[in-house]
């Protein structure tokens, strides 16, 4: 078994709780959708690409984002829905770049399928733009080494895992997730940090992600 290395800095687990803010903005067809995607605040793009993940985290992986879901289920544009849900969110380190990709995907589709502009949502099924307001709080959990880290990882809320893996990287515009940052820089285990960075968290449920992280770290500890 590997020697337990004390980290240079203690890792404090935070949690993120969110409140949903309404904008009063709604789209009835693809033209309006793309126009509003351009205008709305970044916190709205963030909400619609990540809400499903947190709200329906018990479901199977590959959670669709709200844009993909609406385009497929309400407008019946399955192909565009597929293109939107397969945008590789993990490749985007800012909301700005993710927004640009979504806009380009819809515009590209509209250029080759101009009739798609003629599809309208029924009353009550419009796309309602919403924002996420995040409240980030430190928890009482701190880890000095990987053993303590993985023990805590097993019991923190999924909100905490969500914050360190998704929100911190994309919304706070850090280049990597918090776990990889700490394991690489503070514990000094670059290879484990890299393995965690390579994990595509968007294709796991949050509980699945927790299980995977615990497994990877415990395997490392048992070497």
């Amino acid at each position, binding site marked *: 078994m590997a020697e337990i290395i004390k980290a240079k800095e203690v890792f404090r687990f935070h949690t993120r709780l969110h409140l949903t803010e*309404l904008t009063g903005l709604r789209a009835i067809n693809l033209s309006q959708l793309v126009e509003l995607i351009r205008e709305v605040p970044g916190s709205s793009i963030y909400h619609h690409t990540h809400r499903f993940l947190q709200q329906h985290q*018990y*479901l199977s992986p590959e959670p669709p984002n709200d844009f993909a879901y609406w385009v497929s289920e309400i407008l019946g544009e399955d192909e565009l829905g597929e293109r939107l849900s397969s945008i590789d969110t993990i490749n985007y380190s800012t909301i700005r770049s993710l927004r640009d990709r979504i806009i380009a995907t819809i515009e590209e589709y509209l250029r080759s399928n101009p009739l798609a502009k003629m599809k309208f949502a029924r009353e*009550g099924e419009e796309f309602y733009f919403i924002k996420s307001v995040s*409240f980030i709080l430190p928890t009482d959990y701190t880890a000095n080494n990987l053993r303590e880290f993985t023990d805590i990882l097993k019991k923190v809320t999924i*909100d905490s895992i969500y914050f360190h893996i998704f929100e911190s990287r994309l919304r706070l515009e850090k280049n990597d997730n918090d776990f990889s940052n700490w394991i690489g820089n503070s514990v000094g285990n670059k290879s484990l940090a890299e393995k965690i960075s390579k994990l595509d968290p968007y294709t796991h449920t949050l509980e699945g992600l927790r299980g995977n992280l615990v497994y990877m770290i415990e395997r490392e500890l048992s070497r």
Partner: protein
Amino acid sequence: MAKLEEYIPIVGQSIIDDLRLLAKRLEGKVVQHINSTAVGGGVAEILTRAVPLLNELGLNTKWDVIKGGEQFFEVTKKFHNALHGRAEEISQRDFDIFMEASAENIKGVDTYGDIVFVHDPQPIALINKRAENKWLWRCHIDVSNPNQKVWKFLMDFIVKYDSAVFSAPSFSRRLPIRQFLISPSIDPLSDKNKELPQDLIDSVLKKYEIEKDKPIITQISRFDRLKDPVGVIQAYLQVKKYIDCQLILAGGSARDDPEGMQVLAEVKEKASKDKDIHILLLPQNDIEVNALQRGSDVIIQKSIREGFGLTVSEALWKAKPVVASNVGGIPLQIKHKYSGLLCHSIDGAAFAIKQLLNSPAYARKLGENGRENIRNNFLLTRHLKEYMLLFLSLYHPEDVVQL
């Protein structure tokens, strides 16, 4: 009344820990809820359960009720219907009556809270006495298509609040103040939702002479055209052609509601020739409603309009497969084909019911997903968390708040 500890086995220790963490950030603040009635109706029901729990968390929470005479409440009932989009004659006299009663309340009600949380239109004018404290307005009504005259009248008050709260995105409109989405919730420990032993469920079915020999489809709703009970019977008849099943339509007494009596008579007439249709009047019997939901194979909610549709949450919490109309707050609770089936018509409802009855494994999966969705998003504990976040948002205007 249930204590916080009792929710731990249902939602987990960490959720309760989060609530305590948030309550600490609000230490020293007094939150004052104000509505128009201490008993009866959804708002009072939620406050009855939420206020003691918030106090247990250490958040100083008070609840006051405004006064109003018969005329005032007749006017506010008219406002309520008009906001729901029903045709109502609203006269200047009605607005005058509203303002006279509001003036009395402005004089009589002490708005001492650091945060004053006003529920629904009845006490809305209290905002005219706002001082340095924070004010919230919670709209529990479906205002997706409101009567413009009433809405404009209310807007003069709404804009003076710090923030407004709605139950569904479709109820929001462009406002100059912040507006938040907070859905209602169910209490998993209430009589309507708590676990029941199988023999109690069986005894309730037996009491109403419902055999368990064929699948049971159930809609729990008052007898109201907006709940489309006749449409439910038509959907059932379509299913019955292929699958021998039975239907329960159960709801509260309609004795003091002339339109309700008429709807009930129509429903009874439609059902008269079929011994497999059970029409049950259940005046405020939460345990029996709970048992009927648990004893059913498919729950239907074929509403034409719906504020939020808490009967859907109740059914999903019991892991029942649900077929429901895509209206009001229902699509927030059901993601089509993930946690239930949404429909737009009688034919669609019938098709969905057949699918569920013929594919029990699929039905079971939807029910299980539905239960998890309710556990994560529509239980009272989530409601408490969001109320506390809402209070914190009054002191933090930014989108990412570091506490």
